[in-house]
């Protein structure tokens, strides 16, 4: 919708005469070009969203058999939150920890590929993207094998006493967070890489000419210049990671279930559509709030 607002409308002041093409019969061209995309968004995004918004306000005592009456039951929201706030906060906690881990691994990785890899650059990029050629499910199931109680990873950790003799990784929060970190890492690395790749090496040289230490150079030059990629990357990582339910389902236990698992069960198992819809909207609102705050902080103060 904001996109529409930025389209030149053809009206202009006398001081800057409009280009000929903008007036006359091409005036509606931009709108025509927008039409397929807008229609698609309306049909498959806006309408289902409306439907969901409506469902979240249905009378919770209704059922599939008798139908749901629209009663503007706003109480669905506090009730859903009260019943499932642990899963809610857990989603943000796990996604947050995974994000930190992914940043610790992903930033150096993106930097190395962009600045230091030389002729290996393309190969390394393919290595980052290649796992995405297999299905998300298969990759997560592979982690089940890697972290298996009788596998070598757990065996090694037991031998060096990082895990007790009966310790395990599968079915613990560790496995779920590892899974989240792994599965969404490319979404963080790729935008970061795109930013860092454009980083002008002469700027770093200039910084060191001006007696900046490497740490200072990073803080004052590299980091600010990579900010767009960092912001895009963290958002692309954090948003799907918060709503994810596959990792918790396959690598965790009920004690690790995230809000996605609850929504899945509300719609498919318990058939409590008002609650499922309310939870979906709460999740959406919570993520939007986090993103808003984040963009305000990171977007205005550091980027510009």
């Amino acid at each position: 919708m904001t996109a529409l607002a930025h389209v030149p409308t053809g009206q202009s002041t006398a001081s800057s005469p409009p280009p000929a093409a903008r007036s006359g019969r091409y005036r509606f061209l931009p709108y025509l070009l927008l039409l397929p995309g807008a229609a698609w968004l309306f049909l498959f995004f806006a309408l289902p969203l409306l439907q969901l918004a409506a469902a979240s306000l249905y009378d919770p005592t209704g059922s599939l058999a008798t139908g749901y009456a629209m009663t503007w039951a706003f109480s669905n929201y506090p009730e859903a939150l009260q019943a499932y706030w642990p899963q809610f906060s857990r989603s943000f906690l796990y996604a947050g920890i995974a994000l930190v881990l992914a940043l610790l691994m992903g930033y150096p990785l993106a930097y190395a590929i962009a600045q230091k890899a030389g002729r290996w650059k393309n190969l390394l990029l393919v290595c980052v993207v290649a796992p995405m050629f297999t299905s998300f499910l298969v990759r997560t199931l592979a982690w089940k094998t890697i972290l298996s109680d009788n596998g070598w990873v757990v065996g090694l950790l037991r031998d060096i006493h990082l895990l007790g003799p009966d310790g395990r990784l599968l079915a613990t929060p560790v496995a779920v967070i590892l899974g989240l970190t792994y599965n969404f890492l490319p979404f963080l690395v790729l935008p970061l890489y795109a930013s860092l790749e454009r980083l002008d090496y002469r700027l770093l040289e200039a910084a060191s000419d001006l007696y900046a230490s490497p740490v200072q150079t990073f803080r004052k030059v590299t980091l600010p210049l990579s900010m767009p990629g960092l912001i895009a990357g963290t958002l692309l990582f954090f948003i799907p990671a918060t709503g994810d339910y596959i990792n918790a389902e396959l690598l965790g236990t009920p004690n690790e279930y995230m809000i996605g698992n609850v929504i899945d069960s509300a719609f498919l198992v318990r058939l409590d559509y008002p609650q499922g819809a309310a939870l979906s909207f709460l999740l959406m609102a919570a993520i939007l709030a986090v993103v808003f705050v984040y963009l305000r902080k990171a977007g205005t103060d550091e980027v510009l």
Partner: protein
Amino acid sequence: MRTPLRPLSRRGLLTGTLGSAALLAAGGSLAGCGTKAATQTEAGCVSDDVSGTEKTLAFSNWPQYMDVDEKDESKRPTLDEFVQKSGIKVTYTEDVNDNNEFFGKVQNQLAACQGTGRDIFVVTDWMAARMIRLGWIQKLDKSKLPNVEANLLGSLRNRPFDPDSQLAIPWQSGLAGIAYNGNVTKELRTVDELLTRPDLKGKVTALSEMRDTMGLLLQSNGHDPANFTGAQFDDALNKLKKAVDSGQIRKFTGNDYAPDLAKGDIAACIGWSGDVIQLGFEDEKIKFVVPESGVMLWSDNMMVPNKATHRANAEQLINYYYDPAVAAKLAAYVNYICPVKGAQAEMEKIDPELATNPLIFPDEAMLSRSKVFMALDEKQEREYEAKFQQVIGA
């Protein structure tokens, strides 16, 4: 360097807010209607049967639930034979992976009394019961099903959701009981052991199918899963909750417990007989146990949904699979409990060892210890399912 991301401007915020307000307003107009009742009646949703002119049948089933030729996986001997004998062209699709998911797939059409494009599909008892309750299933003509009449196992007749066996005909049945991997733990005999034995802590899984897990727990408390009270259910649920809270139960699973049990990641579990038999073929230390307190008997049922236009063809197929010789061939491949009387004698010709396996052809002693879960009305189903889901964490 300019960045592609703009800071949030006042105008952007305003447009956003106005946009959301517009969406909400539109929502209000759309929301006025709510949803219609999904319940249908036989009279209100009549189907025309065109079997006489169209010799086709669309059959939806679970994966690996049909015999395939050892040499050529695309051939299905029993089904091919049916096609040849009857001249009915069968479109066989393995698109039922999960009862709840399948329900999601067909619910919109069936609730609105529209066809699903399927003439026959296979779902588990409780889902069959729900669909029957919603009036989504066509009655079969019993005169067209003489084999079913003659050969359906006694313990699968008179089921609460289909007392006359004319809505849901068992495709295969199975037991939900306990299983253990003898390589990593010692013998296991009761549900209580499974839930409390210290050496199994964190190495136990249970099924996320409420009826299987709760049925076994109800029995372990000495109650009857075919006829229990709310208080008895709560008792059993508390027992389960204790095992979850203490960390004894590691997780709740669907079919996916099987590879974990084989690897020894889990030592024991509540599981299904067919899966465990197949694991047992590869590793004889993996065993299925019928707990002394009792075991749950479930079936996957063939049903003809409303607006399916080939009911008579479907009846021919159902009748065909109740021929003991055909049923034995199928059972030799899928290894679940065969619901057809007389198939055991036929099985002796194919594989004498399977014919004596009580988990494929249960004897009277075992059948007398097996129970079918009570039919729940919608209110009970929601209440019990919500309570159970709370305990298993979702």
